[in-house]
């Protein structure tokens, strides 16, 4: 992981990250229900898709330079991230601050193995959803007697939209869910103690 905070909340602990994953999916479910109540997701469905994409990009990370998880590609962003303060902005314009350090974004062997594994696991989950879409699509062509014919297109849409949302967010969610607690840097912990001892 590249960052350990989201909206000021510390995400170094696994429990905090799991709460974040639950909150993200709960938020998306609330959006889906609200969209259904508003216009049966006809227009709001697209906005919910973009909301899911923004959450994936800005909060979860992985497929962008922002977010908790390092970019899966291991490449630094082409453009610099937003400056955190006016001082940083001024330093950047004066040339005192260079481009982002590529080492900060590079994945080590363990991170690459974890990245590949969570994508394999997410793939298995999406295959299950794809099987559900199969059945509904087949039923749409040959409607069974126990289901009203008008219900099937809506059902198909109701499965496809969450499937796309899951496909966007699932690898990052699995990674955040399973990654253990991040140990604080022992050098940082020892530094104040060393300072105290020198005094």
């Amino acid at each position, binding site marked *: 992981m590249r960052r350990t905070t989201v909206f000021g909340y510390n995400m170094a602990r696994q429990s905090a990250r799991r709460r974040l994953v639950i909150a993200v999916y709960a938020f998306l479910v609330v959006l889906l229900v609200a969209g259904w109540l508003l216009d049966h997701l*006809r227009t709001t469905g697209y906005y919910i898709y973009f909301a899911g994409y923004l959450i994936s990009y800005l909060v979860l990370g992985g497929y962008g330079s922002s977010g908790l998880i390092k970019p899966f590609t291991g490449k630094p962003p082409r453009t610099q991230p937003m400056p955190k303060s006016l001082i940083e902005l001024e330093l950047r314009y004066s040339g005192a601050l260079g481009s982002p350090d590529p080492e900060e974004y590079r994945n080590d062997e363990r991170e690459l193995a974890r990245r590949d594994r969570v994508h394999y696991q997410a793939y298995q989950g999406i295959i299950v959803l794809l099987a559900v879409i199969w059945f509904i699509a*087949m039923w749409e062509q040959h409607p069974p007697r126990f289901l009203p014919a008008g219900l099937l297109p809506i059902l198909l849409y109701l499965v496809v939209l969450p499937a796309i949302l899951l496909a966007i967010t699932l690898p990052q969610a699995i990674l955040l869910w399973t990654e253990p607690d991040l140990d604080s840097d022992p050098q940082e912990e020892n530094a104040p103690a060393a300072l105290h001892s020198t005094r």
Partner: protein
Amino acid sequence: MNAPRKFLLFIPAETQRSRRAIVIAYYLVFIAFAIWLLWLRGPARYARLLPMTYFWASMLGGLSFTGPVRLFSRWQRKFQDGSAWGIDGSRPHPYLAGRPLIQPIDRLDEHDIAMRDRAHYLAYSTLRWPAIAAALFAPLILMDSSPERVAHILFLISVPVAALFFSLPQAIILWTEPDVEPDPQESSPQTAVHTVS
């Protein structure tokens, strides 16, 4: 990946060249078959192609144990004893006794698992782009459509998506796996025997 190296049970897939030829032929035949079904036989026959995407992909292996790519995971088949669907490989059901239906297969080693996971990552990150493009351009096509028309278009798209989703990891493995160099230790004893004789 050293286990079954055959496509469609008889086409050899030993060299990288033949594996790449299999991948190209697989997609060309599938596309031709889908177009033939859609244009000549109608949407009802095209619908039957959807479940077939899984079986077509399993010909490449990965999803089944009969293909050039080794089986991906143990939920399809237990690795340790070679049993399948609850039938023990070493002590098969009396009905299956004497039939070579169930053969124990080797456990995936670290290299196989790394290759499998990497192929899935590449497939996943590749399939994200069509999903993003579809979501960006779908409003232009579908905004004023009826739910029936939306479902029809989703259904038409679902076949190529399912075909790619099921087959892309295997295709990536077949495409990228290099040729295995012959082990010099295996060849050297023979030369030693020749030189002695």
